[in-house]
């Protein structure tokens, strides 16, 4: 499969092909598997060194499952996954040794991802000592420097998480992630529970750290406005599949997939002359998926052809899975 960056000579940091993460639904006395929830169903994506890649979609589309799968937190049904050129899939699991701690994840809820019984020092030192990033003598200084990087004074290391606000907790999570000297951080909706002024602080911090440390980020979000300001490339996900991908500015200004366009049009903007356009209908549930294209029941362009499964194809430097993609001119 070709992608936007396939012509580059440099090996991409993450390369994923046809990845599937399915959850069995069991019922009955014997607990037989009745069917599968195909939360990630044949996803291919690339993340290059130092690149911010966004993954957007509505809730329940499988974007968090994909993030967790790429972090090795969930078993894989099938597919291939290279991290820095090394194959990471070993049977149905990811071989964690391939990551060498270079891939970290930050979660959405800053209240549940920090152990309330541990001080900030304990929270930050456990992974550092376990993975021998530093020894007992130097760990305190290292933690102080990490807190400095996320804009917190060193004396905060003796406090417990309850003493901090949501934004500050998210800074601690970021400090924990960058302490491992990662090359990739998977950020799963990390600002969606924060207030706008604090959200902007965290985004500025991430962009700054990216400059300093040369990090690549997989930024999982539902907020397209935010994605526009932060990401270089964008993947749009709908019901377990990537429906469109390309450069963020291109995709957002000239979407090719009808779903991407509907998503963009439903976002309220500051321009009162352009009210949001309503996309009717609801996302079908995973246990009751339509045959063929999963967007067909809400799509204005649907035809007979959509009863088959569209395959991703390269169009105008973008990958789109649609039988009737929009053309850039038709929207002008």
């Amino acid at each position, binding site marked *: 499969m070709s992608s936007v960056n396939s012509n580059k000579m440099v090996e991409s940091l993450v390369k994923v092909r046809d990845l599937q993460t399915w959850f069995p639904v069991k019922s009955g006395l014997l607990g037989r598997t009745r069917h599968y929830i195909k939360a990630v169903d044949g996803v291919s994506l690339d993340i290059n060194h130092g690149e911010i890649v966004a993954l957007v979609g509505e809730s329940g589309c499988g974007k968090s499952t994909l993030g967790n799968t790429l972090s090795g937190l969930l078993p894989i049904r099938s597919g291939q996954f290279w991290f820095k050129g090394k194959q990471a899939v070993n049977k149905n699991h990811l071989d964690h040794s391939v990551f060498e701690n270079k891939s970290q994840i930050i979660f959405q809820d800053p209240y549940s991802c920090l152990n309330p019984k541990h001080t900030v020092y304990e929270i930050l030192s456990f992974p550092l000592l376990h993975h021998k990033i530093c020894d007992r003598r130097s760990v305190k200084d290292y933690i102080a420097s990490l807190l400095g990087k996320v804009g917190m004074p060193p004396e905060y290391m003796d406090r417990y998480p309850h003493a901090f606000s949501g934004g500050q907790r998210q800074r601690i999570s970021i400090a924990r992630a960058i302490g491992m000297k990662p090359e990739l951080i998977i950020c799963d909706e990390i600002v969606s529970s924060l207030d706008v002024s604090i959200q902007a602080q965290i985004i500025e911090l991430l962009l700054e750290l990216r400059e300093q440390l040369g990090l690549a980020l997989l930024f999982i979000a539902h907020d397209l*406005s935010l994605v526009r300001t932060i990401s270089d490339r964008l993947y749009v996900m709908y019901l377990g599949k990537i429906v469109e991908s390309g450069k963020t500015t291109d995709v957002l200004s000239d979407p090719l997939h009808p779903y991407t366009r509907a998503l963009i049009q*439903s976002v309220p903007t500051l321009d009162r002359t352009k009210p949001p356009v309503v996309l*009717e209908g609801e996302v079908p549930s995973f246990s009751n998926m339509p045959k063929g294209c999963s967007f067909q029941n809400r799509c204005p362009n649907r035809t007979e052809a959509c009863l088959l499964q569209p395959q991703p194809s390269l169009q105008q430097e973008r990958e789109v899975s649609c039988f009737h993609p929009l053309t850039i001119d038709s929207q002008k």
Partner: protein
Amino acid sequence: MKSIQGSPILLVEDLSIGIKKSDQTIALTDGISLQLLPGEIHGLIGESGCGKSITSLALMGLLPEPGGVLLSGRVKLGENDIFTLQEDQLNQLRGKKISMIFQEPFAAMNPLIRIGDQMLEVFEYHQTEFDPDQKIRELLNEVGLTDHSRILQSYPHELSGGMLQRIIIAMSLLLDPDILIADEPTTALDVTVQAQIMNLIVRLRNQRKMSVLLISHNISLMAQYADRISVMYAGQIVEDNSVDNFLKSPKHPYSLGLMEAIPSLDRTDHKIKSIPGQVPEPASFGEECRFIDRCSKAFDRCKVMPSSKKSEDGSSYRCHL
């Protein structure tokens, strides 16, 4: 957008609400004044902890539990002064005159009771001249839900968040209220569903000439749907303006900061700029302007709390500049 006129149907004057903790009382809101005109969508915007939910609950005569006290001011709903009424008098107003919908559709419903039975509960407390069953079906139609028998038989977990929020809106309108308080009605929902729900609220407003107090932290949402906007910061209203003027030239430095901090799809070359620092805690509110630590324009006079100034165009703001 056409300008909305008439005498206010809801008037909040100098409302301060505090909370008693052991031996001291901490003021959570300070001198809130706002008015709601018939058929107006009035936006109340602010960050978490700024007192917007406390204010909205006070409009229904509800104070925070335990220890909530009314420090000063009043809420006038038509002829009634909310805080002089007895509980049973208030219950007659709630739902009939003023109704409310909340942020989390799943938390607002009882998970053990079927939707139909929960909707009927409304009629146990209020006598009405119309047939409850017919009224429920009528309203379900109005919010765009047609599969009545299935929905009424369902438990909340069997429905999606968007459907549940529609049901809650239908429920809040069962007694034809004049005012709907919508406290972050779409925050828990996806953008596509958000557009559906907001269109529904606007349509109901137009049909019923209902007033809506829309509480949100999302400026873009306000820009699209509200007529007027009040900005809250640390328990005070710092700016009150028409949405058109607010978008063109926000007056208070905090409003300006918010506009800089938000990303928006239509701003292609906008670089987001955060407001440094954090919102102060209610216990630490002092004599100085509450935005002083985060304000780039702060100067000597800001050591004294500014009062709310009215300008000629009908807007008001709380700043020395």
